């Protein structure tokens, strides 16, 4: 949760601290994402991405390789965060992976319509959960090539 990292791998937007802890643990287990920022609500995520509010003056060149975005978030919900990310020139190409508990068709459809790169349902069962996070981290950080523009 270091906000002054030079290197930035993942922005995790998750309000449930235990879920966040599990995600971070799963990633660390596999030595993925040593540089991770965790923010607990949608407003904080937007401030961080656009250098506003408590993140005023942040060097916006430091962009995460991927955003792991929960949908049910306090203040500004995940769908709105996604919409704002896609609406802004600076972030519209940013890979966003929706990581949520729900398998609701409505959420899946909306997320993809708004330009989510992936939609992942967090399993309840721990082993499955570890595997899903490991695969996700592996893919977006090690396999996927991002645009530098």
């Amino acid at each position, binding site marked *: 949760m270091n906000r002054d990292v030079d290197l930035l791998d993942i922005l995790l937007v998750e309000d449930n601290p235990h879920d966040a802890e599990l995600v971070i643990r799963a990633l660390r287990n596999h030595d993925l994402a040593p540089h991770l920022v965790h923010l607990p609500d949608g407003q904080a995520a937007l401030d961080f991405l656009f250098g506003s509010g408590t993140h005023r003056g942040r060097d916006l060149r430091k962009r995460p390789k991927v955003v792991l975005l929960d949908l049910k978030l306090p203040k500004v919900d995940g769908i709105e965060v996604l919409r704002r990310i896609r609406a802004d020139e600076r972030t519209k190409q940013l890979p966003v992976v929706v990581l949520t508990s729900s398998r609701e068709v*409505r959420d899946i459809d909306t997320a993809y319509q708004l330009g989510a790169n992936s939609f992942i349902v967090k399993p*309840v*069962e721990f*082993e499955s959960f570890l595997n899903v996070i490991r695969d996700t981290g592996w893919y977006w950080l090690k396999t996927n090539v991002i645009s530098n523009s």
Partner: protein
Amino acid sequence: MIRKETSNLRKTRKSRPHAADAAGVPPRPADAKRALHASETLQAAILNSLPAHIAVLDSEGRIVAVNEPWLEFARANGDPDTETVGVGANYFDVCKSACQSQDPHATAACAGLKSVLAGEQPRFTMEYPCDGPGCPRWFAMEVLRPVGNAGGAIVAHTEITERKLFQQLLAWEKSALERIVSGDSLHVVLDQLMRDLEALTPDAICSVLLLDEDGVHLRHGAAPSLPEAYRRAVDGMSIGPGVGSCGTAAFDNRQVIVSDIATDPLWAEFRKLAARHGLRACWSTPIRCGRGNVLGTFAIYYRNPRHPSAFEMEVIERATHVVRIAIERSMAEEKLRRFHAELEKRVEERTLELQAANRELESFSYSVSHDLRAPLRAMDGFSRMVLEDYAGRLDEEGRRMLGVIHSEAGRMGRLIDDLLAFSRLVREPIEPVWIDMETMARDVFDELAARSPERRLRLVLHKLPPAFAAEAMIRQVWVNLISNAIKFTRVRDAGEIGISASVNGDGGCTYHVKDNGAGFDPRHAGKLFGIFQRLHSQQDFPGTGVGLALVQRIIQRHGGRIWAEAEVDRGATFHFSLPNPES
């Protein structure tokens, strides 16, 4: 009396064979004369007692004999000089004036008579109106050729006014009934009924008043020929004894015939009103519904004092009956309309309620799917993390306890998944396709059996008719029923599952899934399909209690039925029916 030259008549009759001749006994001259006289008297009596006006014409059209009604009619119609219409006159002259005025009936009568006299046809008949003083009259004219070769003709005129009036009344009734079912509003229907009736009864002014629901006030129904001001004055009037003809008729529930408004005490309070509009007679009849209650009044007004004739009484009776039908039909329609509107309102209300409930359910299940999973994930995850991070400090019992947390969290997760699947099913639309049930049942069995390779399972699959239903849902039905059967046959060395089908009376199908498993106590069969209801302990047969509820919901949504029968330890059979898609 038949005047002069009755011999002509006699001649025609004489040409017929006499009864005595027929018997073959020749009559004696004196007897024959007496008999002849008697016969003539009888013939005259018969001819004079006929309602028809009869004249006998010679071949030139000259009248050679007439009966008494002929003369009476001539006299009554202002023809005291019977020479012009009586014996000796030429019948063509009689008709001439009418012919010249180009009355089509008179022209036709002349032509008909001519053709009979000329022997072109043996008989000519015609019905014609005759505008005398008073009401219009109708006559039937018949021209016959006398029997024998004497030539000439017999002309008979019969008054048929009454028959004509009844025919018109009947036609009015028929068209009135047609109008009643036309779908027009009651006022439009009654208005037309009254107009048509007035055309039938000259000078009559017909009206209908309707009794309000309060049973006190008379409301305007229809009166196309009553002055507007009079109509307005009557509209809303309270019924009572001595309130004109209609108010009294409605109040007393009896017919009130007022022949002269100017003198009748019932009109004391309304005499001036009637006089102002030139109304002198009013015959009012209550219109009663089937139970005898007054619905309104039907009235005929005249501008002169008048008492109804027998025919007019008949008109009143029939008109009242027809108007009653119109009113009752309109009331029934109104009732139906109100009922329909009420029903529609109720449906709308229920729909809104259901929509609200649905929305609530949707947000509930949305919330469940998000919020209930997270704590479970934490329970499972953190217990596993303890196991990983503190393995060295945990003994066997500690690990077992953490294992319980893990497995219970997993079960709770499945419960939530099942619950969500169940609630989703309520909302998902059914898009039916033809399903090969036999293939589907076999595939599902193979798939499920493959997950339990340690079990000895046998499927006895009979021929299954295809079904027209939502594919994914019906697959879920097979999965749940077959996995149930596999689960509950665990107590046997070899689990045997029989699947068959039978065709129902409606052309639909019932599918049967039979197993040789643990069965259940039939006393609890009612609970079988309730959500979260379980008939076995978690230890013996684990499950969430959602599966059969889900199956039932699917079958019900397809319009089918599901039921089961079993005995403890003797296996169970589940039956589900799907209706004929064509019915």
